[in-house]
């Protein structure tokens, strides 16, 4: 009994211990994510880019520039493009070394491109455009035929067909450059911090699964020394805990996308001293209507659906005004975006008239709105809003929730009636969205669109090769008009604003150009 009393006394005396304090050394930046990364290797992910963005460099980078973005040289200092738009000659920046001291050469660039193809998992699309890409990926060739190394700092790349967006593609995190020599020696690249070596401003020193990872300044970095010398990214799966940690000064930046919009409104936006940074999530939130579904194959029905949904109300009600309306396929912030494009006007009466014209009786049209169970709160609200809006014009769209895996399987089978999803841009070129969704019959089937106009599909595929920027933009905009205004291939909604809040230790923060949750730590300035 005495022992029990002693233990109870100890618990009662706990408050007498000194208060907990999470210290922050100078140069340290602390932030949190809801989910841990699965890899640091771009051949295995299209999501986990924070480490690749900070530990590796690319030949080019896309940088924010006055509300838009621009492509700037990074590991290359010079380049030229042949008249036919097929061959690119590059000059590599001299004197660049990886964080383990190994020198960067043109062979490393070739190795990096070939590695993506040989791994044949993620991010193969860009190197596949190079002559011989398919052969390397299929294992029929060991080296890329279209990649020529002249010397350590000069090389050329020949594409199978012209692609005016190629330089933009090279700035995608997927095109990170790794060291061929190091890769020959290490066994766990992308898994072990010591093996994951790049030329970027940081090197990764620690990765504890489901707990945290740490990046420290790479003293061999060729560029300017960043203000942040050490970055700790904690995995905090509970949004409320992240919120409390930020309020408590245990985090220096909080990604408000992880928070409930009501918490953002009441805790952050309502506080005049909160320093909120925002940037559009360059991409598109859209509603797909499968053309193979009865009734939805009728363009009048698809247009009626577009007219029945008040997109302004989605922006106000779901995103609390923190979103930008989209009217086409090419999103705001992307080269080629057409501001003049008119979207579906909210007109329920007009929608009912169109349905009557199509011969539909009230309640006759029924289809499923398939929802991924991992959808965030705003997407769930959009589903509910669409279902309600369509009921008002006599369409029964039932929201059915699927676990993530089943949802993906149903969608890629081409048999999903209808769904809402979001596409985020990987690089600043219209092809990144236009070609992915409408570039081939297989692509439209894999996303359960089943768009039927073969001529438009062929034009989308061909548009990538138009070398002249003005001609390419004109073709994309014509295609966009045909796809949306004429064919109602999807209903574009909006793109949300990505908000962050800065803590007292942070002077300034520039988000990644497309509003990724992943950011460049060098773009944070500490006080």
């Amino acid at each position, binding site marked *: *009994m005495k022992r*029990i009393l002693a*233990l*109870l006394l100890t618990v009662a005396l*706990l*408050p007498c*211990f000194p*208060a*907990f*304090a*999470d210290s922050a050394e100078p140069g340290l930046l602390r932030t949190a994510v809801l*989910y*841990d990364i*699965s*890899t640091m290797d771009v051949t*295995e992910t*299209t*999501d986990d880019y924070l480490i690749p963005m900070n530990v590796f460099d690319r030949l080019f980078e896309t940088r924010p520039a006055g509300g838009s973005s621009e492509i700037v040289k990074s590991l290359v200092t010079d380049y030229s493009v042949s008249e036919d738009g097929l061959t690119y000659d590059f000059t590599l920046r001299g004197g660049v070394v990886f964080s383990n001291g190994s020198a960067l050469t043109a062979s490393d660039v070739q190795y990096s491109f070939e590695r993506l193809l040989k791994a*044949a*998992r*993620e*991010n*193969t*699309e860009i190197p596949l455009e190079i002559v011989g890409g398919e052969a390397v990926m299929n294992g029929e060739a060991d080296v890329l035929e279209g990649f020529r190394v002249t010397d350590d700092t000069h090389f050329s790349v020949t594409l199978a067909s012209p692609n005016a967006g190629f330089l933009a593609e090279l700035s995608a995190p997927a095109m990170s450059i790794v060291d061929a020599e190091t890769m020959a020696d290490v066994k766990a690249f*992308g*898994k072990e911090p010591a093996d994951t070596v790049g030329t970027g401003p940081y090197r990764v020193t620690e990765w*504890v*699964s*489901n*707990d945290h990872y740490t990046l420290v300044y790479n003293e061999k970095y060729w560029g300017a020394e960043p203000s942040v010398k050490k970055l700790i990214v*904690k*995995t*905090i*799966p*509970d949004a*409320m*805990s992240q919120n*409390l*940690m930020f*309020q*408590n000064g*245990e985090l220096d930046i909080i990604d408000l996308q992880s928070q409930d919009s009501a918490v953002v409104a009441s805790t952050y936006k309502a506080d005049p001293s909160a320093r909120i940074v925002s940037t559009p999530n360059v991409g598109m939130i859209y509603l797909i209507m499968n053309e193979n579904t009865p009734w939805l194959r009728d363009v009048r029905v698809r247009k009626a659906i577009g007219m029945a949904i008040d997109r302004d109300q989605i922006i106000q009600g779901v995103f609390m005004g923190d979103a930008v309306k989209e009217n086409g396929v090419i999103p705001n912030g992307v080269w080629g975006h057409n501001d003049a494009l008119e979207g579906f006007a909210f007109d329920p009466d007009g929608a009912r008239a169109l349905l009557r014209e199509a011969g539909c009786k009230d309640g006759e049209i029924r289809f499923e709105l398939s929802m991924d169970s*991992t959808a965030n709160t705003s997407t769930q609200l959009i589903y509910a809003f669409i279902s309600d809006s369509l009921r008002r014009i006599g369409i029964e769209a039932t929201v059915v929730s699927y*676990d*993530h*895996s*089943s*949802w*993906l*399987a*149903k969608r*890629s089978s081409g048999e999903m009636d209808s769904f809402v999803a979001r*596409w985020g841009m990987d690089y600043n070129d219209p092809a990144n969205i236009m070609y992915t969704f409408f570039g081939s019959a*297989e692509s439209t089937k*894999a996303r359960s669109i089943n768009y039927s106009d073969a001529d438009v599909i062929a034009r989308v595929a061909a548009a990538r090769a138009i070398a002249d920027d003005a001609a390419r933009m004109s073709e994309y905009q014509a295609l966009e008009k045909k796809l949306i205004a004429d064919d109602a291939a999807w209903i574009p909604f909006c793109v949300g604003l990505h908000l962050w809040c800065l803590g007292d230790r942070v002077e300034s923060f520039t988000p990644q150009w497309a509003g990724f949750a992943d950011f460049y730590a060098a773009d944070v300035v500490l006080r």
Partner: protein
Amino acid sequence: MRRSIAQRFLQALIVLVGVVLLTFVMLRVVPGNPIETMMGEHADAATVARMTAELGLDQPMHRQFLRYLSSALRGDFGTSYSLGKPVSLLLKSAFRNTLYLALFAALFAWILGVACGLVCAVSKNRLPDRLFLGFSLLGISLPVFMAAMFLQYVLAFKLKWFPISGTDSWRGFVLPAAALGWNSAGQVAQMTRTSLLETLQEDYIETARAKGLGRFGVLVRHALRNAMLPVLTLMAIQFSGLLSGAVITETVFSINGVGRLMVQAISGRDIPLLQGTSLLATSVVILGSLLADCLYSVLDPRIRKEG
């Protein structure tokens, strides 16, 4: 008794194999391709097909099961699709955290629960009894996440006595253990009270009192000791439950434990990780139940004799 324990052990083994088989089959018959889930939005059909073949998921199910079983017996549970690391390694580090959390929670629950139960029993139907009974009811009925959020807000955020999340030091385990143990403490308190009140009615208690033993002596040496039998069984079952994964507590306090790993495996259709975590959770529950049976047999001479 040995025969009885051997029988229980055999039963446990059969249940374990059954659960492994069921998990294995279920994960393969439910719709959805785990490779597609793993590769996400940008995966093309050819790559998905190639990866499916590479991981042997296109093989007949019996062949996959035999391969899994032979690897599992060698301690190789495969590599997690979503985390890209060996499942055995992930389980090892997660189980260590869960073990610490369960130990702290059990300690909290048992000390508090037994103490409350004792106070209730000796002051039956008086104010302390009603007060502590209400307290234990609160423990049983309060959802874990509410307790967790309350403790986190008051003790970590407002008073700053503990970290809001993370387990860098022993302090990090205090709030999760209290949140997790809160419910168990209520159950232990009620069980201790009921069992103690029944025991206090027994003839041998009267005998002990008649022999002139003091109130404390009768209560602790005779009544509590005998009343603890059902409580100990409850504790063993509780402990295996705590060990098999405390998803909410681990999520709220960012503890890399088995429960969180399991949720991650389910949402990502990560077959190797899901099989590994299920196997671990099942083993722990079976072991806990086996231990409770054995403990009961050892402590209760009647059962020992029957066995």
